[in-house]
C-alpha cells in the first residue's frame, strides 16, 4: 500500500473542503468544510507518520483535533451570536463592511 494513495486521497478531500468554503454560503457549512480540510490534513499526517514509523504525526493529529474542537466552540458561538442579530447565517449577508 503506497503512501501516495493516501496522499492523493487527502489532497482530494482537502480540495473539496476548500471548495466548500468557496462556494457555500451557509456559515455552518463553510465551517464544516474547514473541518473537512483539517481532516484531510490529518489523514495525510497519519499516513506520513506511518511511513516514517514515528508517532509525532499522530500526536500532531491529536492536537489538531483539539484545536478543531476549540475552534468549533468559538465558531459556533459566533454564528449563534450573529444569528441573533441578523437572523441569518448566510455569509453573503455579512457584507456591510466594504469599500
Amino acid at each position, binding site marked *: 500500500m503506497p503512501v501516495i494513495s493516501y496522499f492523493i486521497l487527502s489532497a482530494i478531500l482537502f480540495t473539496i*473542503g476548500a471548495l466548500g468554503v468557496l462556494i457555500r454560503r451557509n*456559515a455552518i457549512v463553510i465551517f464544516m468544510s474547514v473541518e473537512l480540510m483539517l481532516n484531510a490534513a490529518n489523514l495525510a499526517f497519519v499516513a506520513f507518520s506511518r*511511513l516514517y514509523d514515528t508517532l509525532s504525526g499522530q500526536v500532531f493529529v491529536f492536537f489538531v483535533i483539539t*484545536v478543531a474542537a476549540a475552534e468549533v466552540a468559538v*465558531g459556533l458561538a*459566533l*454564528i449563534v451570536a*450573529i444569528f441573533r442579530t*441578523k437572523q441569518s447565517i448566510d455569509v453573503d449577508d455579512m457584507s456591510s*463592511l466594504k469599500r
Partner: protein
Amino acid sequence: MTLAELAANLAKILPLVVVILWACVLLLVDLFVPKERKAWTAILAAVGMIVALGLSITQTGMNSEAFGGMIIVDGFAQFLTILVLGSGLVAVMLSYDYLTRLDIQRGEYYVLLMFSISGMILMALAADLIVIFLALELLSIPLYVLAGFARPRPESEEAAIKYFLLGAFASGFVVYGVAIVFGASGQTGLNNIFQGIQGGSVDLALLAVGAALILVGLGFKVAAVPFHMWTPDVYEGAPSSVTAFMAVGAKIGGFAALLRIFVSSFGVLAVDFTAVLWGLAVLTIILGNVVAIAQKNIKRMLAYSSIAQAGFILMALVPYGQEDVIGDAVAAALFYLLAYAFMNFAAWAVVITLEKAEGKGLAIEDYAGMGRKYPILAAIMTIAMLSFTGVPPTLGFVGKFYLFRAVIDGGFVGLALIGVLTSLVSAYYYLRVVVNMYMRPGEPVVQRDNWVYLTAAVAGIGIIVLGIFSLPLLTWAARATMSAFS
C-alpha cells in the same frame, strides 16, 4: 520528564508561563471585581504584563533550547517577546476608557488579551511546527473573540465572523502545509528538518509545497496580498483598541514564525521562494499603498496601510537565502516591526480619541480642524503619518532605510526601487490626513482620555527621539538576530 526538568524548562519560558497563569488567575479574580470597577482588572492585567516584561528582560543574553528543542529562547525570541508585551501594555492603556465608552467593559477582554499575547510570545519562542501551529491558534482564537467583542454591534460581529472563517480557512492551509513538510522530512522540529535537509534525506519539491502552504497561512496572519482581504473589514469592524493591538500583535506573531521557519529551516528553498516572496512583497506594498488612497474611513485606510507595512517587512524576507545578508535583513525586519508598533499605536491612539460611539468620527474628513483645536494630538498624528511615509528623522525612516539597505545588499535593487516608489505613493494618502487636520476647517470633538493621551505622546515622542537616536534599538535588533541566526 522529571519535575526538576520540567521546572528547568518552565524557568526558561517563565515570561510566557507568567502571562498564561496570570491570565487564568485574572479570570478568577475578575469574577470578584464589580462591573463598575473593571479598572482593577485592567490594572492587574497591566501588572502581569509588566512582570512578564521584567522577567523577559532578565533573560537577556540567554540562548538555549527547552522542551526537547521545541522552544528556543534566544535574542530573537526575547526581542519579540518584549515587543509583544509592550504592545499588550499599550493595548490595555488604549482599551480601558474606550471600552467604557462603547459600553463593553468586561473583564474577559483583558484575559483574552493576555491569552493572545501568550500565543504571540509562544510564536516567538517556537521552534517546532507543532508548537507554531498551536501558538498560531492561541494568538488567533482570542483575537477572533476580541474582534467580536463589541457585540451586538453588527459590524463587530461581522468582523469577527469574517476573521474567524478566513482564519480557520488559513489555518487549514497551515496544517496541510505542516503535514506535507512532515511528509517530506518526517520531522516537525525546525532544527531537525534543517538537519534532514543537510543530510539529503528530504524531498525538496514536496518540502517546497509544504512551505508554500505554511507561507499562505502565515501570510494571512500578517495580511500579505493576496491573503489580505479580511484586513480592512476586520480592522474597521473590530473595536479600535482591538484593531490597534491586532495590527501589531498578529503581525509580530506571523513574522516571528515566518522568519523563524524560513530562515532557520528553509534556506535551501531560497531558489524557489525568493521569487515567490518577491512577488508577495511587491504585490503587498503596491496594493496596500495604492488602494489605501481610495479609502475614506481612517480605520480602513490604516488597514491598507498596515498591509503595505507588512509588504515592507516581507521585503526583508526576500533575500533570506543569502547567508551574508540575512542577518541584516532579519534585524531590519525586527527593527521595522518595532518602528511599526510605535507608529501604529501613535496613529490608533489618535483615532481612538476621536472615535465616538456608533462608528462616528472615523471618516478622514472628521479630522478637519484638528491642527487648530488639538495641536498636540494633531502633531502626534502628523508624526505618525510622516513616519509611515518614511520621512526623516522618524523611526519609520530609519526602519525603511535599514530594510532597503538589506534588500539592496541582497541584490534586489528593483525591489528597493518599488519600495521607495510606493513610499512615495503612500505619502499621498498619509498626507491627506495631515491636510485634513491642518488645512481644512472643522470642529472635531475629542474624547478626553488620559491613558490614550499618554500612549499617543509616548509613541509620538518615541518616533522622533528614537528616530534620531536609533543606535540602541538598532544594536538590539542586530544582536537579537545575531544570537538567533548565526
